[in-house]
């Protein structure tokens, strides 16, 4: 046991917890004023819902003793046996510290999906879907990558969740747009963000919390944590600049929303790589994140699907690029990528990308269909006109 490591991981868990309300503001500012509370609620309430699921059985399914590479055992049901002693995933921190750090990841991941169905999702269907998704998609993904499951065995590198968090949520987001269709008025109504200062504040909180997310994933207060901290920051910085440069070239003006989106894209892209690459490659990964995610968002307009707040464009494209880039630039922490003489790492990364997208998309699609057929997912046209704040929650964000 090590006091510095324990303190660092507990503080990192608190930082990651803060990302979820940050995400709520990031998304909340981008919707119309009649939907801001419903959008914020879909992130914030997951601090309640997912935390409890995690304690009851989610943690055990993800991090219980490996069952054939697929899923964890039920030994930690109700957090039985998860105590103050050092746990199986770190010699130097209490098992409880590892569990609560992982809990915050499980909370924010389904919150990321909510950007895709913003302004049209029923609250009840959302809660049922999220409960199922944590058990059927997230827990297995976390197990495969971090719980000694098959992706870890294969040698796939995912430092802080490019696959587990970002690709998984983006694949679910894509499935949501397929099952739920477009918002009422898509293509004819202007869906203009109602409060971009709120969005920028949210992006700032995300950037701040991401230091816990990535540096904390070292699970120790050591040099790897410092490296992850710096690579995270530099990638976000590079991506913010890359995004606004793309905007300047594409439509003539750099925008505030673009700077905020770019920073988040860079943070997503560096997530799988943060502990495996040095600082200059991190800047390249950030630049790529800004450019590719900007193009990914534009692609939505060409393909015509309604991913309201660009979960696929930012988290899908950024997470995929980050996973591939890890296979190119990995050089520290006992890893080597293609550019350091190990081409096989790139193939492993590509295989993990394909498997993550395929599994998460198909499983999420089935879950959305299931919930749609039973509880119902989509608010009807009249409810969408009134706004989700009134029709789903009986409240209004801004009083005249």
């Amino acid at each position, binding site marked *: 046991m090590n006091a510095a490591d324990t303190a660092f991981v507990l503080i990192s868990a608190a930082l990651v917890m803060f990302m979820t309300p940050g995400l709520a503001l990031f998304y909340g500012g981008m919707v119309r004023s009649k939907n801001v509370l419903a959008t914020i609620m879909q992130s914030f309430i997951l601090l309640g819902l997912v935390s409890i699921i995690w304690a009851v059985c989610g943690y055990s399914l993800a991090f219980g003793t490996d069952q054939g590479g697929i899923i964890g055992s039920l030994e930690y049901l109700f957090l039985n046996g998860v105590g103050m002693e050092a746990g199986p995933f770190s010699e130097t921190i209490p098992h409880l510290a590892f569990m609560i750090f992982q809990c915050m990841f499980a909370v924010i991941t389904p919150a990321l999906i909510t950007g895709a169905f913003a302004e049209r999702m029923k609250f009840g269907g959302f809660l049922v879907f999220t409960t199922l998704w944590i058990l059927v998609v997230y827990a297995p993904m976390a197990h495969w990558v971090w719980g000694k499951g098959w992706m870890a065995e294969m040698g796939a590198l995912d430092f802080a969740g490019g696959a587990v968090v970002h690709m998984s949520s983006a694949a679910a987001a894509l499935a949501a747009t397929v099952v739920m269709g477009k918002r009422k008025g898509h293509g004819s109504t*202007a869906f203009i963000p109602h409060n971009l200062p709120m969005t920028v504040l949210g992006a700032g909180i995300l950037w701040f919390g991401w230091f816990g997310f990535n540096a904390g994933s070292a699970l120790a207060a050591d040099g790897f944590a410092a490296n992850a901290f710096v690579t995270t920051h530099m990638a976000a910085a590079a991506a913010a600049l890359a995004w606004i440069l793309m905007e300047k070239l594409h439509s003539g003006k750099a925008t505030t929303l673009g700077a905020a989106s770019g920073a988040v894209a860079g943070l997503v892209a560096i997530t799988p790589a943060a502990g495996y690459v040095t600082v200059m490659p991190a800047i390249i990964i950030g630049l790529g994140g800004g450019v590719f995610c900007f193009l990914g968002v534009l692609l939505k*307009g060409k393909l015509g699907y309604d991913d309201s707040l660009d979960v696929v464009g930012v988290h899908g494209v950024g997470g995929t690029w980050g996973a591939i880039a890890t296979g190119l630039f990995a050089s520290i922490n006992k890893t080597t990528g293609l550019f350091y003489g190990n081409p096989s790492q790139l193939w492993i990364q590509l295989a993990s990308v394909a498997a993550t997208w395929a599994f998460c998309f198909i499983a999420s699609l089935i879950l959305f269909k299931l919930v749609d057929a039973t509880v119902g997912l989509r608010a009807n046209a009249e409810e969408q006109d009134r706004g989700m704040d009134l029709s789903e929650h009986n409240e209004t964000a801004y009083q005249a």
Partner: protein
Amino acid sequence: MKKVEIITRTFKLDDIKAALSEIGIKGMTVSEVKGFGRQGGHKEVYRGAEYQVDFVVKVKIEVVVEDARVADVIAAASKAARTGQVGDGKIFVLPVEEVVRIRTGETGDAAV
């Protein structure tokens, strides 16, 4: 009595208020409004998607005065609001049937 409605650029509000105060106008009602005329709207871009915003934000100033002062109000307001560019706005003059000061019950010109 007449009501003079001045719809113009928001940043001209302080100038107009000062100009009307100078000619002895002691009260007005101000609201933020949206609309369009010859100026048209403008383009906004969010994450690369362009939107045409047709309604332009303007300020509406309402002043009720005795008939004899209407010309002065129009002159002062026009002078203060004019930039010479499209989008300076419009002034409407409407008849007012009755005015009541709620506190005292006074009516007509005495209540203006």
